């Protein structure tokens, strides 16, 4: 039981990071981006390449684990580089595709994101192949936090704890950005009323670019987290897409705080449902959550405005 909760929190962190990007692009660009999952995949694979690059540059080509973790500082650098590259990728896709369709109907953007996701996913497969990859082959020793006879016990690896901790730090940083900086206020203003934002002097195209950068960077970091705690596969992001949508809608689409809470709820629901429905149907849980929320509270748990 405890173990399932802990696993759910790790998955929930990844979902929360991805769902925040989804909800941001939804509220500012006004469309459901089916490509969000691919930014996770690309982030994870970019980090494979940037890690190789960092290791080559710093000499030796080997990564000494940092303290209790399975990886060294090089992976942190690689992750930041991957986040930057993924942000650039998002800007390029926007420039090539979405920017040209913004004047039309929002659903055209959804279809376009669908096509872009397909192309991006298979491009990864083309470039990196389909075999799973890992950042580190180090075996990690899980720390036993709760003995086995208390609620089934709890063992957590340092990597997993780091993922949860970093996610919370990132979310606090994002919250600070949105409420305390001019960029954040401009983003919230644009989400509320783009025409008024322009009249007030907001460069809306600039805000859109910032939104892509933030959303894609968070997705990339989430992708790297999947790579650290599980493995890196071309379907990594696609398989998370349904949980991302479920989390974003659960939290009330457009609400950053809601997406974080929604992410953890979906992560926990998935994890806790495993003993009930079996691991193979784990992904269906997100769908059940989604249908439930659409039927009962379509504006999400925290969404007040219709």
């Amino acid at each position, binding site marked *: 039981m405890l173990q399932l909760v802990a696993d759910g929190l790790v998955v929930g962190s990844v979902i929360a990071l991805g769902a925040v990007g989804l909800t941001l692009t939804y509220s500012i660009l006004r469309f459901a981006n089916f490509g969000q999952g691919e930014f996770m995949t690309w982030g994870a694979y970019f980090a494979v390449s940037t890690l190789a690059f960092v290791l080559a540059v710093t000499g030796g080509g080997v990564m000494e684990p940092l303290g209790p973790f399975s990886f060294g500082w090089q992976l942190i650098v690689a992750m930041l580089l991957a986040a930057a590259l993924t942000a650039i990728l998002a800007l390029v896709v926007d420039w090539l595709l979405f920017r040209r369709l913004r004047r039309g109907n929002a659903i055209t953007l959804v279809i376009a994101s669908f096509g872009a996701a397909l192309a991006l996913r298979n491009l990864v497969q083309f470039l990196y192949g389909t075999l799973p990859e890992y950042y580190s082959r180090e075996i990690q020793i899980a720390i036993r936090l709760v003995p086995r006879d208390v609620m089934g016990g709890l063992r957590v690896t340092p990597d997993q704890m780091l993922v949860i901790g970093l996610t919370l730090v990132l979310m606090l940083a994002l919250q600070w950005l949105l409420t305390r900086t001019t960029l954040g206020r*401009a983003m919230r*203003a644009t989400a509320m009323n783009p025409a008024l934002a322009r*009249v007030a002097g907001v460069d809306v195209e600039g805000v859109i670019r910032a939104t892509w950068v933030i959303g894609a960077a968070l997705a990339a970091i989430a992708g790297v987290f999947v790579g650290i705690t599980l493995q890196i596969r071309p379907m990594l992001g696609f398989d998370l897409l349904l949980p991302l949508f479920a989390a974003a809608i659960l939290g009330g689409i457009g609400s950053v705080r809601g997406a974080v809470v929604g992410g953890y709820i979906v992560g926990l629901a998935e994890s806790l449902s495993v003993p009930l429905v079996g691991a193979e149907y784990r992904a269906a849980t997100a769908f059940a959550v989604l249908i439930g929320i659409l039927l009962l509270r379509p504006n999400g748990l925290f969404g007040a405005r219709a």
Partner: protein
Amino acid sequence: MTAALEMAAIEGGYEPGLPILRGASLSVAPGEIVALLGPNGAGKSTLVKAAAGLVPVWSGRVMLGGRDITGLAAHRMVHEGLGFVPQTENVFANLSVLENLQLASALVARKRRLDLGRMFELFPDLDRQRKLEAGRLSGGQRQMLAVARALVASPSVLMLDEPSAGLSPKLVGVVFERLKAVRDTGVTILLVEQNVKAALAIADRAVVLVEGRERLEGPAAELVNDPRMAALYLGAAA
């Protein structure tokens, strides 16, 4: 003397081939309050939105203090010194009163920024509601905030679209008094209004727009009793 704001033979609209503005012209002298009047659907809102960069201008010119600003992106207009208060949804409802003003202030160059403290002096009601979400303000306070938001960027010309809409007659009086106070600080005002009487009471001059063209203009005091006014309004209604 150069006009503070001049629109010359503006043609434009929302969809290609469907002109709403058909050669509209008007001019506002520095320090003036000009009322832009006309029947419903005449294109008054469209004209000010076109000047603000929200509606495409197909031909004609918009000059601000002698500089050609035709076709500039809407967010650049603010930096040029043209302020605009739309008719509805004119505050960021999800931001607090203070954040509304902070945002507007942060977006313009430092030397343009008006001190937020002075703004709160001008609108004491807002001072008491700094932390409140703008969406929860009363109608009159919301209108004040919308004006304050535009003023923070210290515009040389301020365009307002029906600031009296939805307000009680008493509140209309209060808002218009504030507008006069704003004008007295040196801001030129173009005021779109349905409320002809109230508008003519504070305006120096008025322009009447019908079907996307100006049809009548003159000093406000003279237009109040001009029979042609009624004819234009009725003619459009018939």
